[in-house]
């Protein structure tokens, strides 16, 4: 079998094997059911909770917060990135800050945000934007850096207007790196919002998990957990595959 297929096969086997192993250990009582419930139970719980509609409010709340934070982060990130790129002096100052930005745990600002903005969606959105926007800024800068200067000359030879130069040359040329930033932005926004809800919130899926834990409702907790993780994996996987498709055309051979 081709190596590529073998890799995927082994990967699936490892995952499936781990799940089956966990299932067996739980059912056999090797693992305390008060600690971890069998994967099949987790799955059933997730289906129940989603199907019964009792998670709908949380789902809406969390998703809308994430999407809002994501969109804001992209808008702000691209704009800021483009502006910084235009000014070498500003860039000189900002570059080291961006390089160190992700060494600071953004979550520590969350209690302060709550004190400032109240216990609602606002601090969560701000937290999401704080987590995601710098990644977009960095990738915008990287994307703009990566545009071959000869393409800009080409735009002038073809006498393109600034707007056309931007949409026909700058944007497509910067897109691969920009897209990587978008991919990161989604995962950071998701992580930021869920973590915020988990630590300190009144609504949302993160709060549900934390609440279920504190109420000793393992079944509910694991069901919600599985749902959140599945959504994260699927959405990130989707963007990752899309990015791969974009990249493959440009770098085959």
């Amino acid at each position, binding site marked *: 079998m081709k190596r590529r297929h073998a890799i995927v096969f082994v990967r699936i086997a490892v995952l499936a094997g781990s799940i089956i192993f966990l299932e067996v250990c739980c059912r056999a009582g090797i693992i305390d059911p008060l600690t971890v419930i069998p994967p099949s139970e987790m799955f059933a719980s997730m289906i129940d909770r989603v199907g019964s509609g009792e998670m709908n409010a949380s789902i809406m709340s969390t998703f809308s917060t994430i999407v809002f934070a994501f969109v804001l982060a992209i808008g702000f990130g691209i704009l800021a990135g483009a502006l910084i790129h235009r000014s070498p*002096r500003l860039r000189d100052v900002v570059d080291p800050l961006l390089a160190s930005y992700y060494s600071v*745990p953004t979550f520590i600002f969350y209690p302060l945000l709550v004190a*400032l903005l109240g216990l609602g969606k606002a601090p969560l959105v701000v937290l999401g934007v704080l987590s995601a926007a710098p990644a977009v800024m960095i990738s915008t800068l990287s994307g703009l850096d990566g545009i071959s200067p000869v393409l800009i000359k080409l735009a002038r030879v073809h006498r393109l207007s600034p707007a056309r130069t931007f949409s026909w040359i700058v944007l497509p040329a910067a897109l691969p790196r920009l897209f990587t930033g978008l991919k990161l932005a989604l*995962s950071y926004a998701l992580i930021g919002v869920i973590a915020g809800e988990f630590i300190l919130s009144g609504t949302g899926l993160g709060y549900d998990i934390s609440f279920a834990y504190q109420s000793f409702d393992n079944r509910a907790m694991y069901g919600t957990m599985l749902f959140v993780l599945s959504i994260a994996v699927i959405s990130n996987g989707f963007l990752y595959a899309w990015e791969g498709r974009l990249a493959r055309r440009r770098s085959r051979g």
Partner: protein
Amino acid sequence: MGGATGAAPFEGMSDLLLEDAQPRPTPRRRVRAFDTFLLVLTVLALWQTIGSWTKGVAVSPPWQTLVYLSGLLRTWMFWDHAAATLAAFLLAFLLSALIGLALGLLFGVRRFAGDVAEPLLAGFYTIPKVTLYPVVLLIFGLGLSAKIAFGVMHGLVPITLFTLGAVRNLSPVLIRTAKVLHLSSGRTILWILVPACLGDILNGLRIGFSLSLLGVLIGEMFSSQRGLGFLLVNGMAQHNVPLSTAIVTVIVVVAIAANTAMLRLGRWTAPRPA
């Protein structure tokens, strides 16, 4: 190579790394120092504005924070909590580093295993691990081991991925050289592999450092009776705003200082071409 424009050890990570160019000529350095000073002033001014505008309900203004902090640093309580965080963090980072390096080397050398594992690891990196924290607590109970486990959960994956990438991107000609020189496996690793990969490995350690700290802090923020994370959340719960602000300041300063130091160390041990 881990530059923003160079090949990333693995996808997505290139964006977290920005390379500083060569040491700049002095006039530009002076301008940058001045601009940075301006920026710091702006940040302080903003801080002051928010602090006084909200009448200290949300954030304590800079000067008050500084005063409070100097007092705080003299209390036994603070250092007790700081030590708790430090202990948990150091153990978490050490574990992450050792396991991460070992796994990274293994996956880098054994290509097939590496190809199987990499997307799984990268996927794990993007999920909100905070949702798994209750499981960690259930398994490890409340206390130090849970915090360490959580720190390792955050720090292990990037170290593994960076090491994996570094080893994998190793130029084959270096391995061939090792074979021609009849070097043993151990010597090949020590004399060729590690120095060649050092830059990327250090980058991975740097990121693992920050993330282990993050993991430990989140653990403390959610469920602990000791540590800086606990102090932070507790300060908020008790409306002790100067305390919360002071703790945030301490963490930010320590994180940035450590990161900058590690960046410098990386550049010193593995100088990059232009």
